[in-house]
């Protein structure tokens, strides 16, 4: 089986899952740059050590979610996966719109 056929599904799952992962703050790990420390999951460091960085953890969470979805999709017929291909860019544009909406407060 050609496992690269699930790449579009991985991408769809990644871009769709990334936005809620970011919005609800579900990182696999938190990095605290002042102490150079890592912690599993979400960590709100004490004020003296703040800020915590969650971006790395969000990328990994989305990667894990997309990996699981792609693994499940590998069991689907090829025709069905091919029908999902345009969803790749539709999902990306939609999620970009949601991101802009979430970030609007920085620009007003």
């Amino acid at each position: 089986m050609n496992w690269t056929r699930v790449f579009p599904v991985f991408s769809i799952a990644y871009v769709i899952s990334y936005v809620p992962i970011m919005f609800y703050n579900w990182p696999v790990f938190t990095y605290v740059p002042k102490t150079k420390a890592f912690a599993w999951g979400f960590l709100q460091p004490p004020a003296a050590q703040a800020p915590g960085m969650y971006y790395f953890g969000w990328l990994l969470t989305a990667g894990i979610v997309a990996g699981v979805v792609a693994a499940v999709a590998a069991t689907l017929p090829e025709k069905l996966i091919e029908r999902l291909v345009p969803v790749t860019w539709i999902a990306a544009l939609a999620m970009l719109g949601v991101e802009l909406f979430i970030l609007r407060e920085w620009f007003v």
Partner: protein
Amino acid sequence: MNVVLLLTHMLLSVALIGGITHQALGALAPVRKATGGFFNRFRAVNGAAYVNAIVILYFVTLILGLIIYPNYRIGARVAMEQFRLKASVGSFELKEHLSAIGLGLLPAYWWLWQPAQKAFTNSRRIVTLIIAIAVWYGFMVGHYLVNIRGITG
């Protein structure tokens, strides 16, 4: 060390922006022969030949960006917040999320440029364009923020 990493990040992003711009223009407005003026020659490239290089450049550039990101988070960003440069901080937030969306699109982008996927021309064009926009936006915001003291006084 951070300066070396920042400059390397910048140089790789220049290579990435060149490659993705050639490829995106070639995909959106293709020409068969590299004849005529600059614009015709610029877009008369074999886009498929750029794919692996662009995937690697995107990934390595992002990794370097991630390595220097903590320095920005506890340094430049704190200063920008103190000076109430909200839009500048927000611009970087958007760069961060656009880069993540671009990263997520890379597997589909690679797949869409494989010779067997000729049926998905529109998807290939649009995904390539989205990645090009992410790269251009990241490049411009990165440079703006690096130079923000000189630009805003």
